[in-house]
Each structure stands twice: as structure tokens, then as C-alpha cells.
């Protein structure tokens, strides 16, 4: 579809030739703020990774160009899957977000370091800059990873369970930050989450991965308690 940042057309997703989801079609348009929902193992993260170019699609077409240039993704992985054995500070982790824009062999300079600090400030975590990443709490790590994604100067922010393993106030603060980025800067956001109640006030649309298909609609409808109960019961029974 014209005007979409990312467009899936009859796409089959999976790993090592084994399909996880088949025949998906989906558009993410500029300014969207979407929640991607569904039970564990249904393929939510795979959708995100395929969008970001981390996992290639098995079949079908994934288009991610906008205004004649490739879409820039800000990808926030699940915290527990990120194993940073290198003793990197929060600022250095965020600085990695600027590497995508640098050609091979070009070392980061002051501009990249300053960009990293700006992004840390933007997520309210400037004080963490000198702290080793692996010593941060779950919420602090999540803020640093969001800052890293912002450092890529993204067109589309993809967040994989950004609220898992963190307390309710921190989750609320992160959601408020994402809502602000979407409203005030027009940043397009797609987040995978299980926190249905928490995201209801932030996202405008929700997509359920249900029975191998994508069900998309306004958040008010898709996250209504009756609808959620029906979908969960059907998933459980199937």
C-alpha cells in the first residue's frame, strides 16, 4: 500500500525453513501507534524481527522504503535476550544506536557521543551515562535501550515486550514516554506486549495474532474486556 513505512504482502515468517506464521499482510503507516498482542509463541517477536530485517521472511514480500529511501528502524529487543558481555556503559550502549548511519571503518566521533547523551536525556536517564549497563535495573536498562533505538533516528520504533520484568510505575513512565514520542514527534511505534491494561491509554490501534491470522482494529475495540476474553478463551481452547 502506498504511504506505508512497512508493508507485508502475503508473507510467511519462520526460522530455518519452518513457518511460524503464514500468509500475513500488514501495513504500518507513518504516525501509527500499535500494540501487537497474542499468546506466547504465537510469532509476535518474529513479526517484529522480520520488519527490522533481523529474520528474513520465508516467502512473500516485505517492503520497507518510504519517500524513496530505506526505512530506519529503532529496535528495542527483549531485555533478557540481550547478553552484553562487553563491559559497556549505558552511554556506550546508546552510542551503538548511531553506528547504523556510519560507513564501515568510520569511527564514532564527538557528534555520535553527543547524540547518545541527548537520547539518554530524552528518556530521562542522563544520570545513567557512566554506569555499566549490566549493573542497571530492569527499568533503567529498558530506558537505555529505548534511548539506543532513538539514537538510530528511526522512522519506526519497534519494541519487543518493553514492559516485561519491570515494576508498574516504571512501566507507566516508559509508556508515557512512548505516548509523548508518538504525539509530539510523530514517531511511529509498534510494540509487542502482554500488558493489555497498561497500553490501552497509549496505543491507538491493536493487532491480535489469533489463530495464525492478524486481527487489527482500534484499541478501544480490540482491547475491550469482552473482546480480550473471547480471544484468550479461543486461543486457550485451540
Amino acid at each position, binding site marked *: 500500500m502506498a504511504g506505508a513505512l512497512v508493508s507485508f504482502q502475503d508473507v510467511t515468517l519462520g526460522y530455518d525453513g519452518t513457518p511460524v506464521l503464514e500468509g500475513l499482510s500488514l501495513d504500518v503507516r507513518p504516525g501509527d501507534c500499535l500494540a501487537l498482542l497474542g499468546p506466547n509463541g504465537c510469532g509476535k517477536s518474529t513479526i517484529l*524481527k522480520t520488519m*527490522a*530485517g*533481523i529474520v528474513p521472511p520465508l516467502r512473500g514480500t516485505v517492503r520497507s522504503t518510504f519517500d524513496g529511501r*530505506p526505512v530506519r*528502524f529503532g*529496535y528495542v*529487543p527483549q531485555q533478557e*535476550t*540481550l547478553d*552484553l*558481555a*562487553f*563491559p*559497556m*556503559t549505558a*552511554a*556506550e550502549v546508546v552510542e*551503538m*544506536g548511531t*553506528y*547504523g548511519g*556510519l560507513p*564501515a*571503518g*568510520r*569511527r*564514532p566521533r564527538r557528534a555520535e557521543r553527543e547524540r547518545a547523551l541527548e537520547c539518554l536525556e530524552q528518556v530521562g536517564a542522563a544520570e545513567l551515562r*557512566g554506569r*555499566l549497563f549490566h549493573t542497571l535495573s530492569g527499568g533503567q536498562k529498558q530506558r537505555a535501550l529505548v534511548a*539506543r533505538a532513538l539514537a*538510530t533516528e528511526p522512522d519506526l520504533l519497534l519494541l519487543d515486550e518493553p514492559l516485561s520484568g519491570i515494576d508498574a510505575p516504571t512501566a507507566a513512565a516508559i509508556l508515557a514516554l512512548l505516548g509523548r514520542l508518538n504525539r509530539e514527534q510523530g514517531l511511529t511505534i509498534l510494540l509487542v506486549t502482554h500488558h493489555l491494561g497498561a497500553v490501552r491509554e497509549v496505543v491507538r490501534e491493536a493487532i491480535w495474532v489469533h489463530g495464525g491470522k492478524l486481527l487489527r482494529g482500534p484499541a478501544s475495540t480490540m482491547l475491550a474486556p469482552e473482546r480480550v476474553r473471547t480471544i484468550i478463551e479461543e486461543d486457550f481452547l485451540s
Partner: protein
Amino acid sequence: MSLLMEILSPGFLLRNAFYGGLIIGFVAPLVGVYLVGRRMVFLGVALPQVSTAGVAGAFFWHALFHEHALHEGDFGLALAGSTVFTLAAILGLAVWESRSRARAEEQTGVLYAFAGALSLLLVASDRIAEIGILGLLKGEIIAIPTGELLVLAVGYAAIVAALWFFKKDLLLVSADRDLARSFGKNVLAWDVVLYLIIGTTISLGVLLVGPLVMFGFLIVPPLIAGRLVTGIRHLPLAASLFGGLAAFAGFAIAYRLDWPLGPTDVALVCVLLALVVTAQTAIGWLRRT
């Protein structure tokens, strides 16, 4: 002071061994930072052993076709053996890892055991070669010909240059492969670049100082630096300085006490690490009480 003057004098008899050790002490930790950071420490043990097997293979090959023993002029053959074995092992491990359910450390352990046995078997029938290989295994660094020292210096200078220019790219694919892929980086190609750097470092170094010293300088200085430096920006430089200083001090101690150089170097960096760990533990305990 007089010992220092003697070691640094241009006419010093063991100057090539001294400079060779220094070069390896400064450069190997720069590569070791990636082995430690990627949790590939076992590979740092196994690859020098494989490289030694390559040297033994070169001795064996030479003995098949020549009546005289391998000598200084055959350095190229030994280097080729070391390089071929090391790069083949890296490639084999990569393929095995992609097709096997065995964990990486299991594969590396098997490789280490096999390479050690192969080294000794390949030279068992050649007494002169056996002495040479045993010398390598013990880390007896006494006579390094000037030509070999030059090859080491030029090769390691190229490695330092590659690590300098590609630090961002190597760090990215080592620390977060998914992020690298989302940037459109060819992760496999960058892995190959890193493995070539690791393989070249090890195959060149093992020829001159043996697997024990190579492993010691690859792994221990980055561990020391990781405990004293916050962040990745200054970690390689700090690891390199610790390695270089340990090589310098190790040579002085070995020369003064007439100890074998390789084991002295390795024991020294390990003692340094133990001192740092002990001091940090004591400081932590004092702060708590």
C-alpha cells in the same frame, strides 16, 4: 637499573626475544578483548594449540620430503602450517556450530584435546622436530631470528590497524548481532573479518612464543583491564598496556633469575590478576564494614 640498561642496549644478545615478547604482550590483548567479550575464552586456549599442531604438521611435512631438519629458512612453511590449521579450525568450528546441537565449549574442548595429541603424534618420529615442538609448548623464547621478528611486527601492525579502523563494526556484531542485522550489516562477513584477525594473531604469535604464552596474553590482560576500567572505550588500550608491561617485567624477571621466559610471563599476568581481584575484594569488604 643496570639490568634495564643491559636489556635495552642495542647489542643485547636476547633483544629479539625481548622485542618479540613485547609486541605480543601489547597486541594479543587487543584481540583477546573480543574473545573475552564474546565468551570465547575456550577458543583462546584451543586455537593456539591448533596452531602448534600446524607447526608440527609443517615439521612432519618437511620430514617426509627432506632429509635435513626444519631450520630458520623454513619459517614460511611453519607459518603456513600454523595459519592453515588455525583458519581451518575456525572454519570447521563455525560449520560444526551451525549444524550441530553440541554446545560451543564441547566442540572447543574436543578440538583442544585433538590438537594437543596431534602435535605430539606428528613429531613423534622426528627427534629434532619433537624438541622444537616441546620447546614451543614450554614457551621457551630464546632465539627469535630477525626475519621472523620483522614478519611478526609487520603482521601485528596490520592487525592493530584493522582493529582500529573496524572497532565499531567488530564491536557491533560481537555485542549485539540483532542490532547489527537491523542496520543491514552482513554479520557473517564481519565475523569472518574478526576470525581472520584472531587466526592471524594466533598463528603468527604461536610460532614465536608457543601456545601457553599466546593464551596467557590473549585472555588475562583483558580480564585485568575489565576489572579496572569502566566501559569499552578505554578497555582495549588498558588491556594492551597491562599485557605490554607484563611482557617487559616478565622478561626482566626471567633474565635476572634465569627462569624460562614464557612461563614467567604467564605467571606474572596471572599474579597481577590475582592481586587486582584480592585488592578489589578487600576494598569491597572494607566499604561494607
